[in-house]
């Protein structure tokens, strides 16, 4: 743990906020069309319809906000899932949420030729929620109720099933492949601000909910029996976590497609900085998740200039070595 005293933890949060703002400004200014501070400010104060101003207002700004919101949501969802499942590799992926959202969108495009963005988002959300609820239900069967192992297994099974269905649909309908491929890789580019506005109520409630239950998360982390003995209603708190994860991860999938690894990497980095108290981990991981995705999205513009890499590929490049590191380090670090 890097930051031990309460003062240094507040300072850490403050630094993260400043960094996030700087990265978001960089995200608005830099890219294939390079602009500068002055142009960015002018685009909002003295809009003149120039190419740069249009790009800043309609492309760069929404992109920066979507990346930040999605990054924060995925990181917080990862924290909740790692504590809930006691599995350090848990992330929204293992709830089958990404796969469910992906399947819903591919099914909509291939079977029903949906092209409208709003329907697209709503379906992604719906698919993610259906997958998560079924994983939750399957994981709860049996006398002991919801156990981390059953949840993880149910998630892996549902993910595999939805992924296979998705691939099957795409094989049958190659024309649809082009339409959904960029979305399926996970991307925050080419999304309008309305995309964010439509999912913000859900992820906003998710953020607030995560902060409100952070103290109870500390109790749950002590293990099911100890938590129950301390008077925590573990059944209720698990349902609350499930709902919050669906809101955050479902909203993220709807806004940006399935972006992996943020939910795994950020919680670990956060805990190494600020310790394991969820009252600190949840806000800081939200900020760091936002920073990571905004930074990855900036990098995605430069790595194959003038072409753009989907940001999901960037997070995979950063996340894969980290994933292997955590897996090798072993569960609970023991």
């Amino acid at each position, binding site marked *: *743990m890097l930051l031990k005293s309460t003062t240094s933890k507040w300072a850490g949060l403050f630094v993260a906020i400043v960094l996030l703002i700087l990265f978001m400004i960089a995200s608005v200014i830099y890219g294939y069309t390079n602009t500068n501070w002055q142009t960015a400010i002018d685009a909002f104060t003295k809009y003149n319809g120039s190419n740069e101003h249009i790009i800043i207002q309609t492309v760069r700004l929404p992109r920066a906000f979507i990346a930040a919101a999605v990054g924060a949501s995925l990181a917080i969802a990862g924290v909740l899932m790692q504590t809930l499942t006691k599995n350090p590799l848990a992330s929204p992926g293992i709830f089958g949420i990404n796969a469910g959202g992906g399947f819903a969108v591919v099914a909509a495009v291939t079977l029903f030729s949906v092209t409208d963005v709003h329907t697209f988002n709503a379906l992604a959300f719906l698919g993610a929620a259906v997958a998560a609820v079924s994983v939750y239900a399957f994981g709860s069967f049996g*006398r002991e109720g919801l156990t981390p192992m059953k949840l993880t297994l149910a998630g892996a099974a549902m993910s595999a099933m939805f992924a296979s269905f998705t691939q099957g649909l795409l094989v049958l309908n190659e024309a649809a492949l082009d339409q959904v491929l960029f979305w399926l890789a996970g991307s925050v580019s080419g999304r309008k601000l309305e995309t964010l506005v439509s999912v913000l109520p859900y992820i906003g409630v998710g953020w607030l909910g995560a902060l409100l239950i952070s*103290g109870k998360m*500390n*109790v749950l*982390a*002590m*293990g099911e*029996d*100890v938590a*129950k*003995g*301390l*008077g*925590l*209603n573990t059944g209720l708190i698990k349902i609350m976590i499930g709902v919050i994860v669906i809101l955050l991860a479902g909203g993220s999938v709807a806004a940006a497609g399935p972006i992996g690894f943020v939910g795994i990497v950020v919680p670990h980095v956060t*805990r190494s900085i600020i*310790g*394991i*108290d969820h009252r600190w981990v949840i806000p800081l991981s939200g900020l760091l998740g936002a920073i990571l995705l905004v930074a990855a999205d900036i990098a995605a513009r430069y790595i194959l200039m003038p072409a753009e890499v989907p940001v999901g590929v960037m997070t995979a490049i950063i996340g894969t070595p980290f994933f292997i590191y955590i897996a090798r380090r072993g569960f*609970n*670090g*023991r």
Partner: protein
Amino acid sequence: MNAIETKNLSLSYGETLIINELDLKIPKGEITVFIGGNGCGKSTLLRSIARLLKPKSGGVLLEGKAIAKLSTKEIAKKMAILPQSPLAPEGLTVLQLVKQGRYPHQTWLKQWSEEDEKKVNDALKATRLEHLKDRTVDSLSGGQRQRAWIAMTLAQDTDIILLDEPTTYLDMTHQIEILDLLYDLNEMKNRTVVMVLHDLNLACRYAHNVVAIKDQKVYAQGKPEHVINCSLVKNVFDMDCEVTMDPLFGTPLCIPYGKGRCILDKAVAMNG
């Protein structure tokens, strides 16, 4: 007045019946120890009393009230449970662990009070962990770690403390240290202590009241000096033994028959 009562309590894992229609009374202000062979259901019974396991039928009364009708937080203010071999999250410090014991006393409005602070300090003091409070739980030795968990249950400040095999995996010194600590709690603060122990002789020394469990029922219950004898050990543990008197405490001392080196003139230990 009984601290805890079970009424017609039946427990099962799946189809397997563990405890069958049990009526048990656990007296207030005493140390009660559950004894019995491996898999006899003593831990299951303790877990069920602590509401960690739902009964198949029947119920548990806590100070005369059905626990099924009390809120889990209300129960946590009256009864603490230390499960068998609990595992602290990696990186949790002793102080953070002990502070969690105050969870049932906190509300949305009252997050951390002076009383919480005092109870935590008292618990650290009673378990002699003040100098270790900033260490992480996973860096402690077995005995220290168990003391830290007990400190958490002390901070919970309940009249009743349940412990599932609190001395397992500890060496003899630390077993005595933990049991002495619990004995003091009972003597000085009049806490009701209910625990599962494997060591019959230590159970006889520390318990006011032993409950021997066999075949889904209570085989015998009472003061160790009244109930522990050769036939009980034979029937409950399926072991032949002599029961004599502990030369230091006068409580029953069970010496098993069996094989081993006999250095007495007459080989008396052979009929096991």
